[in-house]
């Protein structure tokens, strides 16, 4: 494979070292910290995974999908249905696979749509799935909610850690590979990409489906912590919007930015929810508005422009 020096994904030798150190620290966390921290970290992992998987496809291609909730929810329902039938790791994989297949079908039917039409369709689709599941449960099974086989917080934490490591590595390598190049080309001129020999339909559908795998596996894992689910919990549209907001907040073009955005906003939401339960949404909303108005490049963009400013200042001084 040809390595492309893109500037954005620097082939920095420190990255693997830092990454391994962070994974090791995360692996030791439940041993040294209290259960609350472990659960809170699990929560952060969930949002990082769905943000990364959303941004892997929607970031470079500019096909803004708001169907994450559908794939996440499918994972949750897979967990509810298959939780008693097979061991936990298998349930997680199955959740990913079911979401993958669904995304493949969705991709085949929607990825010919462009821009706004694609976005609206993905939103409509997740709502459709939610209402379909609700209808099915009420009419066919005669109930609304379901119990999910519960799993302890520690195994859930480690499962999420594994999914997180796989997702980050996958995003990193895809971004630097020829597929990353193809995805970015599609985002900037689909017609030119097509005429330069990229099978745009295949690239889009495959990558879209793979990102759904991660969201589905995450859903399957998390369902075991909630124990009770119903369609409005599993297919909560917030799971579609949060990855978009978190990626924009952190910086849509960089993996580091997406991780920071997801982590900061998740922790912030937890903090606000416990400290200011009545004003939580209000404060959260104001912060988001301010960031989007004043930091178009997200946190990473702010960091970059600060670095640039410092560099020009030192140049002027010398």
């Amino acid at each position, binding site marked *: 494979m040809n390595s492309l020096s893109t500037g954005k994904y620097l082939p920095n030798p420190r990255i693997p070292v830092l990454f391994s150190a962070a994974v090791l620290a995360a692996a030791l966390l439940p041993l040294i910290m209290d259960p609350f921290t472990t659960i809170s970290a699990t929560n952060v992992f969930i949002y990082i995974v769905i943000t990364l998987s959303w941004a892997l496809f929607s970031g470079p291609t500019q096909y803004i999908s708001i169907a994450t909730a559908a794939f996440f929810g499918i994972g949750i329902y897979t967990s509810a249905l298959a939780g008693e039938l097979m061991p936990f790791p298998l349930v997680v994989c199955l959740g990913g696979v079911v979401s993958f297949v669904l995304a493949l079908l969705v991709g085949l039917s929607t990825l010919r749509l462009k821009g706004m039409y694609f976005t609206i369709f993905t939103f409509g689709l997740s709502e459709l799935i939610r209402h379909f599941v609700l209808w099915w449960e009420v009419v066919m099974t005669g109930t609304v909610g379901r119990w999910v086989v519960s799993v302890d917080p520690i195994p859930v934490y480690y499962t999420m850690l594994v999914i997180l490591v796989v997702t980050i590595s996958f995003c990193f390598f895809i971004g630097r590979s020829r597929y990353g190049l193809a995805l970015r080309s599609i985002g900037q001129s689909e*017609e030119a990409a097509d005429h*330069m020999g990229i*099978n745009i339909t295949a690239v889009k559908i495959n990558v879209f489906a793979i990102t759904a795998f991660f969201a589905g596996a995450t859903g399957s894992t998390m369902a075991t912590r909630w124990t009770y689910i119903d369609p409005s919990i599993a297919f909560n549209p917030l799971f579609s919007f949060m990855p978009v907001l978190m990626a924009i907040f952190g910086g849509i073009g960089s993996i580091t930015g997406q991780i920071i955005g997801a982590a900061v906003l998740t922790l912030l939401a937890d903090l606000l929810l416990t400290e200011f339960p009545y004003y939580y949404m209000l404060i959260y909303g104001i912060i988001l508005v301010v960031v989007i108005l004043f930091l178009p490049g997200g946190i990473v963009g702010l960091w970059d422009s600060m670095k640039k400013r410092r560099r020009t200042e030192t140049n002027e001084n010398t």
Partner: protein
Amino acid sequence: MSHSDTLLRVDKISISFGGLAVLTDVNLKVDEGELVGLIGPNGAGKSTLFNVISSIYKPDTGDVFLKGKKITGIAPHKLCRMGISRTYQLVKTFNKMTALENVMVGAIYGHKHGGSDAKTRAIDAMSLVGIEDKQNILVSHLTLSDRRLVEVARSLASSPLVTLLDEPMAGLNVSEIKTLLTVIKRAREERKISILWVEHKVDAIFRTCDRVAVLNYGAKIADGKPEEIAKDSKVIEAYLGESLTRN
């Protein structure tokens, strides 16, 4: 019926949009190594013919052949791997990528053998058009003329048999046009590729091309050596008739 050295052949292409006939029974061929110019007044159907060849439109009747093989309506990405690359009148570069990355797309995806030695081919194509020193610059920071060159390099990196140039001179100034003309000549000499070149600037076409075809109101009205075409009464009428009445 196929000549041994005919590379690209357009056979009796007709296409209409909502009852408006844009092309009627157009025949055209490009031989191996040949530089063919395609001219015609505004709305003559030049771009439509290009879009038929590059599979954006499927013709109502007629077929396109590459080396005697029918390629009508084949998916554009396959077309590129078979050896037809193109540039656009309104430049379609990947603006948030560096010049090298743009050209790499052509080298990796536009070529049958894909990734192997793609970088070498990309850099070769860039030096051929003379932008090898701009490899790491974002295309959005380049001038229109350099973007055109990036497009040409991207297309050359896919090692095409034939390249379609859609009004490459549009919007360029005199010295930029000169540069691009040298690039076209050099690409042809070094790569032995065939070129089908649509252009509004008739003088550039007459000076450079081996053969010139003229479209008017969707029909081919002339096809021959530049000096013959310059004297052709129908061509003069199509072009000058227009400007005489305007004056």
